[in-house]
Protein backbone atom coordinates (compact mmCIF):
# COMPACT_ATOMS: atom_id res chain seq x y z
CA UNK A 1 0.00 0.00 0.00
CA UNK A 2 2.78 2.39 1.02
CA UNK A 3 4.78 1.83 -2.20
CA UNK A 4 1.68 2.21 -4.34
CA UNK A 5 0.76 5.54 -2.70
CA UNK A 6 4.37 6.71 -2.79
CA UNK A 7 4.72 6.02 -6.53
CA UNK A 8 1.45 7.71 -7.42
CA UNK A 9 2.08 10.68 -5.13
CA UNK A 10 5.56 11.29 -6.54
CA UNK A 11 4.26 11.07 -10.08
CA UNK A 12 1.33 13.44 -9.45
CA UNK A 13 3.55 15.89 -7.61
CA UNK A 14 6.17 15.93 -10.39
CA UNK A 15 3.43 16.25 -12.99
CA UNK A 16 1.85 19.27 -11.26
CA UNK A 17 5.28 20.86 -10.74
CA UNK A 18 6.12 20.43 -14.44
CA UNK A 19 2.83 22.06 -15.44
CA UNK A 20 3.41 24.94 -13.02
CA UNK A 21 6.94 25.36 -14.35
CA UNK A 22 5.85 25.53 -17.99
CA UNK A 23 3.36 28.31 -17.28
CA UNK A 24 0.03 26.45 -17.07
CA UNK A 25 -2.78 28.20 -15.21
CA UNK A 26 -3.65 26.84 -11.74
CA UNK A 27 -7.15 25.79 -12.81
CA UNK A 28 -5.68 23.62 -15.60
CA UNK A 29 -3.23 22.00 -13.18
CA UNK A 30 -6.09 21.19 -10.79
CA UNK A 31 -8.32 19.75 -13.54
CA UNK A 32 -5.55 17.56 -15.00
CA UNK A 33 -4.45 16.29 -11.58
CA UNK A 34 -8.05 15.47 -10.57
CA UNK A 35 -8.44 13.48 -13.80
CA UNK A 36 -5.25 11.48 -13.13
CA UNK A 37 -6.11 10.87 -9.46
CA UNK A 38 -9.57 9.56 -10.40
CA UNK A 39 -8.03 7.03 -12.78
CA UNK A 40 -5.34 6.00 -10.27
CA UNK A 41 -8.11 5.40 -7.70
CA UNK A 42 -6.73 7.83 -5.12
CA UNK A 43 -7.78 11.11 -3.52
CA UNK A 44 -5.47 14.12 -3.91
CA UNK A 45 -5.17 17.27 -1.80
CA UNK A 46 -2.88 19.72 -3.52
CA UNK A 47 -1.50 23.10 -2.48
CA UNK A 48 -0.12 25.20 -5.34
CA UNK A 49 2.45 27.69 -4.10
CA UNK A 50 4.55 29.95 -6.34
CA UNK A 51 7.74 27.94 -5.87
CA UNK A 52 6.41 24.62 -4.53
CA UNK A 53 3.67 22.08 -5.09
CA UNK A 54 2.59 20.19 -1.96
CA UNK A 55 0.69 17.01 -2.73
CA UNK A 56 -1.03 14.64 -0.32
CA UNK A 57 -2.37 11.40 -1.79
CA UNK A 58 -4.89 9.27 0.15
CA UNK A 59 -6.14 5.79 -0.63
CA UNK A 60 -9.85 5.34 -1.44
CA UNK A 61 -10.89 4.84 2.20
CA UNK A 62 -8.81 7.72 3.58
CA UNK A 63 -6.86 5.33 5.84
CA UNK A 64 -3.34 5.72 4.39
CA UNK A 65 -1.64 8.77 2.94
CA UNK A 66 1.67 9.90 1.45
CA UNK A 67 2.81 13.45 0.92
CA UNK A 68 5.40 15.00 -1.32
CA UNK A 69 6.77 18.46 -2.18
CA UNK A 70 8.12 19.35 -5.61
CA UNK A 71 9.72 22.45 -7.05
CA UNK A 72 8.46 23.67 -10.45
CA UNK A 73 10.62 22.28 -13.24
CA UNK A 74 11.49 23.97 -16.53
CA UNK A 75 13.04 27.37 -17.08
CA UNK A 76 10.53 29.22 -19.19
CA UNK A 77 6.98 29.23 -20.46
CA UNK A 78 6.50 26.24 -22.73
CA UNK A 79 3.09 25.75 -24.33
CA UNK A 80 4.25 22.63 -26.16
CA UNK A 81 4.93 20.95 -22.83
CA UNK A 82 1.61 22.26 -21.45
CA UNK A 83 -0.27 20.64 -24.36
CA UNK A 84 1.62 17.34 -24.15
CA UNK A 85 1.12 17.09 -20.39
CA UNK A 86 -2.61 17.84 -20.73
CA UNK A 87 -2.79 15.17 -23.41
CA UNK A 88 -1.00 12.74 -21.05
CA UNK A 89 -3.69 13.26 -18.40
CA UNK A 90 -6.33 12.17 -20.94
CA UNK A 91 -4.21 9.21 -22.03
CA UNK A 92 -4.02 8.11 -18.41
CA UNK A 93 -7.78 8.55 -17.98
CA UNK A 94 -8.89 6.91 -21.22
CA UNK A 95 -6.19 4.28 -21.82
CA UNK A 96 -6.03 3.47 -18.08
CA UNK A 97 -2.23 3.69 -18.13
CA UNK A 98 -0.39 2.31 -15.12
CA UNK A 99 1.58 4.93 -13.30
CA UNK A 100 4.89 3.30 -14.35
CA UNK A 101 3.94 3.72 -18.04
CA UNK A 102 2.64 7.20 -17.35
CA UNK A 103 5.94 8.07 -15.66
CA UNK A 104 7.88 6.89 -18.74
CA UNK A 105 5.76 9.06 -21.04
CA UNK A 106 6.14 11.95 -18.62
CA UNK A 107 9.95 11.67 -18.73
CA UNK A 108 9.81 11.70 -22.53
CA UNK A 109 7.67 14.85 -22.56
CA UNK A 110 9.89 16.82 -20.20
CA UNK A 111 13.02 15.92 -22.16
CA UNK A 112 11.61 17.21 -25.48
CA UNK A 113 13.69 20.06 -26.95
CA UNK A 114 12.27 23.55 -27.54
CA UNK A 115 11.87 25.21 -30.96
CA UNK A 116 15.11 25.98 -32.82
CA UNK A 117 16.65 29.04 -31.15
CA UNK A 118 17.63 30.71 -34.45
CA UNK A 119 14.10 30.37 -35.77
CA UNK A 120 12.72 31.88 -32.53
CA UNK A 121 15.26 34.71 -32.84
CA UNK A 122 14.14 35.47 -36.38
CA UNK A 123 10.41 35.24 -35.58
CA UNK A 124 10.76 37.41 -32.47
CA UNK A 125 12.70 40.07 -34.37
CA UNK A 126 10.04 40.07 -37.09
CA UNK A 127 7.32 40.27 -34.43
CA UNK A 128 8.87 43.26 -32.70
CA UNK A 129 9.50 44.99 -36.03
CA UNK A 130 5.81 44.41 -36.88
CA UNK A 131 4.95 45.97 -33.54
CA UNK A 132 6.79 49.13 -34.57
CA UNK A 133 4.73 49.27 -37.77
CA UNK A 134 1.52 48.79 -35.74
CA UNK A 135 2.44 51.85 -33.67
CA UNK A 136 2.82 53.85 -36.89
CA UNK A 137 6.58 53.68 -37.39
CA UNK A 138 8.00 54.10 -40.94
CA UNK A 139 9.87 51.24 -42.62
CA UNK A 140 13.28 52.62 -41.61
CA UNK A 141 12.16 52.52 -37.98
CA UNK A 142 10.91 48.97 -38.56
CA UNK A 143 14.39 48.03 -39.80
CA UNK A 144 16.04 49.60 -36.74
CA UNK A 145 13.70 47.70 -34.40
CA UNK A 146 14.42 44.45 -36.26
CA UNK A 147 18.18 44.91 -35.75
CA UNK A 148 17.77 46.04 -32.12
CA UNK A 149 15.62 43.00 -31.32
CA UNK A 150 17.96 40.64 -33.15
CA UNK A 151 20.95 41.74 -31.07
CA UNK A 152 18.99 42.22 -27.79
CA UNK A 153 17.23 38.86 -27.99
CA UNK A 154 20.43 37.04 -29.05
CA UNK A 155 22.11 38.47 -25.95
CA UNK A 156 19.18 37.25 -23.84
CA UNK A 157 19.42 33.75 -25.32
CA UNK A 158 23.19 33.58 -24.72
CA UNK A 159 22.91 34.85 -21.14
CA UNK A 160 20.06 32.47 -20.28
CA UNK A 161 22.04 29.55 -21.75
CA UNK A 162 24.82 30.53 -19.36
CA UNK A 163 22.26 30.40 -16.49
CA UNK A 164 22.59 34.12 -15.74
CA UNK A 165 19.76 35.57 -13.63
CA UNK A 166 16.69 36.50 -15.70
CA UNK A 167 16.48 39.98 -14.15
CA UNK A 168 20.09 40.87 -14.95
CA UNK A 169 19.59 39.41 -18.43
CA UNK A 170 16.49 41.57 -18.95
CA UNK A 171 18.25 44.78 -17.86
CA UNK A 172 21.24 44.17 -20.14
CA UNK A 173 19.15 43.03 -23.14
CA UNK A 174 16.94 46.12 -22.81
CA UNK A 175 20.03 48.32 -22.50
CA UNK A 176 21.63 46.93 -25.66
CA UNK A 177 18.36 46.92 -27.64
CA UNK A 178 17.61 50.53 -26.65
CA UNK A 179 21.10 51.75 -27.58
CA UNK A 180 20.66 50.21 -31.04
CA UNK A 181 17.07 51.45 -31.14
CA UNK A 182 18.36 55.01 -30.57
CA UNK A 183 20.36 54.88 -33.82
CA UNK A 184 17.39 56.49 -35.58
CA UNK A 185 18.07 59.66 -33.53
CA UNK A 186 21.84 59.34 -33.73
CA UNK A 187 22.13 59.03 -37.50
CA UNK A 188 18.86 60.76 -38.44
CA UNK A 189 17.76 57.64 -40.31
CA UNK A 190 14.05 57.49 -39.62
CA UNK A 191 11.12 59.92 -39.57
CA UNK A 192 9.79 58.23 -36.43
CA UNK A 193 12.91 57.59 -34.29
CA UNK A 194 10.91 57.81 -31.03
CA UNK A 195 8.82 54.79 -32.08
CA UNK A 196 11.93 52.82 -33.02
CA UNK A 197 13.42 53.51 -29.59
CA UNK A 198 10.20 52.82 -27.67
CA UNK A 199 9.42 49.57 -29.49
CA UNK A 200 12.97 48.18 -29.47
CA UNK A 201 12.55 46.72 -25.94
CA UNK A 202 8.94 45.50 -26.16
CA UNK A 203 9.96 41.89 -26.88
CA UNK A 204 11.01 41.72 -23.21
CA UNK A 205 7.54 42.55 -21.81
CA UNK A 206 6.43 39.42 -19.88
CA UNK A 207 2.95 39.20 -21.39
CA UNK A 208 2.08 35.59 -20.54
CA UNK A 209 2.85 35.95 -16.78
CA UNK A 210 0.56 39.02 -16.70
CA UNK A 211 -2.27 37.04 -18.33
CA UNK A 212 -1.67 33.96 -16.15
CA UNK A 213 -1.79 36.20 -13.07
CA UNK A 214 -5.24 37.39 -14.13
CA UNK A 215 -6.47 33.87 -14.85
CA UNK A 216 -5.31 32.62 -11.42
CA UNK A 217 -6.96 35.63 -9.81
CA UNK A 218 -10.34 34.73 -11.33
CA UNK A 219 -9.87 31.08 -10.35
CA UNK A 220 -9.27 32.08 -6.71
CA UNK A 221 -5.55 31.17 -6.58
CA UNK A 222 -4.58 34.50 -5.10
CA UNK A 223 -1.11 33.55 -3.90
CA UNK A 224 0.02 32.24 -7.30
CA UNK A 225 -1.69 35.16 -8.98
CA UNK A 226 0.11 37.78 -6.88
CA UNK A 227 3.40 35.92 -7.27
CA UNK A 228 3.13 35.78 -11.06
CA UNK A 229 2.08 39.43 -11.16
CA UNK A 230 5.03 40.55 -9.03
CA UNK A 231 7.40 38.49 -11.17
CA UNK A 232 6.02 40.21 -14.28
CA UNK A 233 6.23 43.67 -12.67
CA UNK A 234 9.85 43.07 -11.64
CA UNK A 235 10.76 42.09 -15.20
CA UNK A 236 8.97 45.19 -16.51
CA UNK A 237 10.97 47.31 -14.05
CA UNK A 238 14.18 45.58 -15.22
CA UNK A 239 13.45 46.31 -18.87
CA UNK A 240 12.57 49.90 -18.05
CA UNK A 241 15.85 50.30 -16.15
CA UNK A 242 17.74 48.95 -19.16
CA UNK A 243 15.86 51.35 -21.42
CA UNK A 244 16.51 54.32 -19.11
CA UNK A 245 20.20 53.35 -19.01
CA UNK A 246 20.34 53.19 -22.80
CA UNK A 247 18.62 56.55 -23.15
CA UNK A 248 20.92 58.08 -20.54
CA UNK A 249 23.97 56.81 -22.43
CA UNK A 250 22.64 58.23 -25.69
CA UNK A 251 21.76 61.52 -23.88
CA UNK A 252 18.08 61.44 -24.76
CA UNK A 253 15.07 62.98 -23.05
CA UNK A 254 12.75 60.45 -21.46
CA UNK A 255 9.57 62.23 -22.50
CA UNK A 256 9.33 64.42 -25.55
Amino acid at each position, binding site marked *: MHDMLKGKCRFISSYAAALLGC*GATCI*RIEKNVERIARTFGVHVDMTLLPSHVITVVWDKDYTHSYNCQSKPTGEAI*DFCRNIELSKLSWQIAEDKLLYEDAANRFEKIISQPRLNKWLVLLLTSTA*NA*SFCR*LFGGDFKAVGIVFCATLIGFLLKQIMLEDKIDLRITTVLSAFVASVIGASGYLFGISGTPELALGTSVLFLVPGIPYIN*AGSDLFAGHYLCSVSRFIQAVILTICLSLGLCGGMFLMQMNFFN
Partner: protein
Amino acid sequence: MELLFDILQDMLFSALAAIGFASISNTPFSAMKYCALLGAVGHSLRFVMMNYMGIHIVISAFVAALIIGILAIPFAPKAKCPPETFSYPALLPMIPGMYAYRAVQGLVLCLSSNDESAFDHYFYLMNFNGLTCVIVVAGMVLGVTLPIFVFKRISFSATREMIKD
Protein backbone atom coordinates in the same frame (compact mmCIF):
# COMPACT_ATOMS: atom_id res chain seq x y z
CA MET B 1 -10.64 52.02 -49.43
CA GLU B 2 -8.08 53.62 -47.15
CA LEU B 3 -9.87 52.09 -44.15
CA LEU B 4 -9.72 48.63 -45.72
CA PHE B 5 -6.00 49.04 -46.46
CA ASP B 6 -5.36 50.18 -42.87
CA ILE B 7 -7.27 47.23 -41.45
CA LEU B 8 -5.50 44.72 -43.70
CA GLN B 9 -2.13 46.20 -42.83
CA ASP B 10 -3.00 46.06 -39.12
CA MET B 11 -4.10 42.43 -39.48
CA LEU B 12 -0.90 41.44 -41.30
CA PHE B 13 1.48 43.00 -38.79
CA SER B 14 -0.46 41.85 -35.72
CA ALA B 15 -0.50 38.29 -37.12
CA LEU B 16 3.30 38.46 -37.55
CA ALA B 17 3.63 39.85 -34.02
CA ALA B 18 1.42 37.09 -32.57
CA ILE B 19 3.42 34.33 -34.32
CA GLY B 20 6.75 35.78 -33.19
CA PHE B 21 5.73 36.23 -29.56
CA ALA B 22 4.12 32.75 -29.59
CA SER B 23 7.47 31.27 -30.63
CA ILE B 24 9.11 32.65 -27.46
CA SER B 25 6.60 30.61 -25.42
CA ASN B 26 7.36 27.47 -27.49
CA THR B 27 3.88 27.28 -29.03
CA PRO B 28 3.68 24.29 -31.44
CA PHE B 29 3.56 25.06 -35.17
CA SER B 30 0.12 23.46 -35.43
CA ALA B 31 -1.32 26.14 -33.12
CA MET B 32 0.52 29.09 -34.68
CA LYS B 33 -1.96 29.61 -37.51
CA TYR B 34 -4.69 30.07 -34.90
CA CYS B 35 -2.44 32.50 -32.98
CA ALA B 36 -2.00 34.50 -36.20
CA LEU B 37 -5.70 34.48 -37.04
CA LEU B 38 -6.88 35.43 -33.56
CA GLY B 39 -4.11 38.03 -33.16
CA ALA B 40 -5.09 39.63 -36.49
CA VAL B 41 -8.82 39.66 -35.71
CA GLY B 42 -8.37 40.94 -32.15
CA HIS B 43 -5.86 43.67 -32.85
CA SER B 44 -7.61 44.97 -35.97
CA LEU B 45 -10.88 45.10 -34.03
CA ARG B 46 -9.21 47.17 -31.32
CA PHE B 47 -7.60 49.34 -34.01
CA VAL B 48 -10.98 50.11 -35.62
CA MET B 49 -12.68 50.71 -32.27
CA MET B 50 -9.97 53.08 -31.06
CA ASN B 51 -9.11 54.95 -34.25
CA TYR B 52 -12.38 55.04 -36.19
CA MET B 53 -15.01 54.80 -33.47
CA GLY B 54 -13.17 56.83 -30.80
CA ILE B 55 -13.71 54.19 -28.09
CA HIS B 56 -11.38 54.23 -25.07
CA ILE B 57 -8.43 51.78 -25.05
CA VAL B 58 -9.74 49.94 -21.96
CA ILE B 59 -13.12 49.06 -23.52
CA SER B 60 -11.60 48.38 -26.94
CA ALA B 61 -9.00 46.01 -25.47
CA PHE B 62 -11.64 44.23 -23.36
CA VAL B 63 -13.98 43.68 -26.34
CA ALA B 64 -11.12 42.54 -28.61
CA ALA B 65 -9.87 40.11 -25.94
CA LEU B 66 -13.40 38.79 -25.42
CA ILE B 67 -13.73 38.09 -29.14
CA ILE B 68 -10.33 36.32 -29.12
CA GLY B 69 -11.45 34.28 -26.10
CA ILE B 70 -14.78 33.31 -27.68
CA LEU B 71 -13.20 32.38 -31.03
CA ALA B 72 -10.53 30.31 -29.26
CA ILE B 73 -13.17 27.93 -27.80
CA PRO B 74 -14.35 26.32 -31.10
CA PHE B 75 -10.78 26.38 -32.45
CA ALA B 76 -9.42 24.46 -29.42
CA PRO B 77 -10.72 20.98 -30.42
CA LYS B 78 -9.67 21.68 -34.03
CA ALA B 79 -6.14 22.65 -32.99
CA LYS B 80 -6.18 19.83 -30.39
CA CYS B 81 -4.69 22.28 -27.91
CA PRO B 82 -6.04 24.01 -24.78
CA PRO B 83 -7.53 27.37 -25.87
CA GLU B 84 -5.09 29.40 -23.77
CA THR B 85 -2.09 28.02 -25.67
CA PHE B 86 -3.05 30.08 -28.70
CA SER B 87 -5.42 32.73 -27.32
CA TYR B 88 -2.83 34.07 -24.84
CA PRO B 89 -0.09 34.59 -27.48
CA ALA B 90 -2.74 36.13 -29.76
CA LEU B 91 -3.37 38.67 -27.01
CA LEU B 92 0.28 39.68 -26.69
CA PRO B 93 0.29 42.31 -29.48
CA MET B 94 -2.29 44.18 -27.37
CA ILE B 95 -0.30 44.15 -24.09
CA PRO B 96 0.25 47.87 -23.38
CA GLY B 97 4.01 47.58 -22.91
CA MET B 98 4.55 51.26 -23.79
CA TYR B 99 2.36 52.32 -20.86
CA ALA B 100 4.14 49.89 -18.53
CA TYR B 101 7.62 51.21 -19.01
CA ARG B 102 6.51 54.84 -19.33
CA ALA B 103 5.12 54.39 -15.81
CA VAL B 104 8.53 53.23 -14.60
CA GLN B 105 10.25 56.05 -16.48
CA GLY B 106 7.87 58.43 -14.73
CA LEU B 107 8.98 57.00 -11.38
CA VAL B 108 12.68 57.44 -12.27
CA LEU B 109 12.06 61.03 -13.34
CA CYS B 110 10.02 61.76 -10.21
CA LEU B 111 13.01 60.83 -8.11
CA SER B 112 15.46 62.81 -10.23
CA SER B 113 13.34 65.99 -10.54
CA ASN B 114 14.52 69.14 -8.75
CA ASP B 115 11.40 71.26 -8.40
CA GLU B 116 7.82 70.65 -7.36
CA SER B 117 6.13 71.29 -10.70
CA ALA B 118 8.45 68.85 -12.51
CA PHE B 119 7.83 66.27 -9.79
CA ASP B 120 4.04 66.75 -10.09
CA HIS B 121 4.22 66.36 -13.87
CA TYR B 122 6.22 63.13 -13.76
CA PHE B 123 4.11 61.82 -10.88
CA TYR B 124 1.05 62.42 -13.05
CA LEU B 125 2.70 60.63 -16.01
CA MET B 126 3.66 57.70 -13.79
CA ASN B 127 0.12 57.35 -12.43
CA PHE B 128 -1.63 57.90 -15.73
CA ASN B 129 0.50 55.34 -17.59
CA GLY B 130 0.58 52.84 -14.72
CA LEU B 131 -3.16 52.99 -14.11
CA THR B 132 -3.98 52.69 -17.81
CA CYS B 133 -1.64 49.71 -18.16
CA VAL B 134 -3.07 47.85 -15.17
CA ILE B 135 -6.70 48.41 -16.16
CA VAL B 136 -6.11 47.53 -19.82
CA VAL B 137 -4.32 44.28 -18.84
CA ALA B 138 -7.07 43.44 -16.31
CA GLY B 139 -9.76 44.05 -18.95
CA MET B 140 -7.92 41.94 -21.51
CA VAL B 141 -7.39 39.08 -19.08
CA LEU B 142 -11.04 39.18 -18.04
CA GLY B 143 -12.11 39.17 -21.68
CA VAL B 144 -9.92 36.25 -22.73
CA THR B 145 -10.47 34.05 -19.66
CA LEU B 146 -14.25 34.52 -19.30
CA PRO B 147 -15.06 32.20 -22.25
CA ILE B 148 -12.62 29.56 -20.88
CA PHE B 149 -14.50 29.54 -17.56
CA VAL B 150 -17.96 29.71 -19.19
CA PHE B 151 -17.21 26.88 -21.66
CA LYS B 152 -15.24 24.76 -19.18
CA ARG B 153 -16.18 21.41 -20.71
CA ILE B 154 -14.78 22.30 -24.16
CA SER B 155 -11.81 24.24 -22.77
CA PHE B 156 -10.51 21.48 -20.53
CA SER B 157 -11.15 18.55 -22.86
CA ALA B 158 -9.64 19.96 -26.05
CA THR B 159 -6.59 17.70 -25.77
CA ARG B 160 -8.90 14.67 -25.29
CA GLU B 161 -9.89 14.78 -28.97
CA MET B 162 -6.34 13.87 -29.87
CA ILE B 163 -6.79 10.40 -28.39
CA LYS B 164 -10.00 9.75 -30.28
CA ASP B 165 -8.53 10.62 -33.68
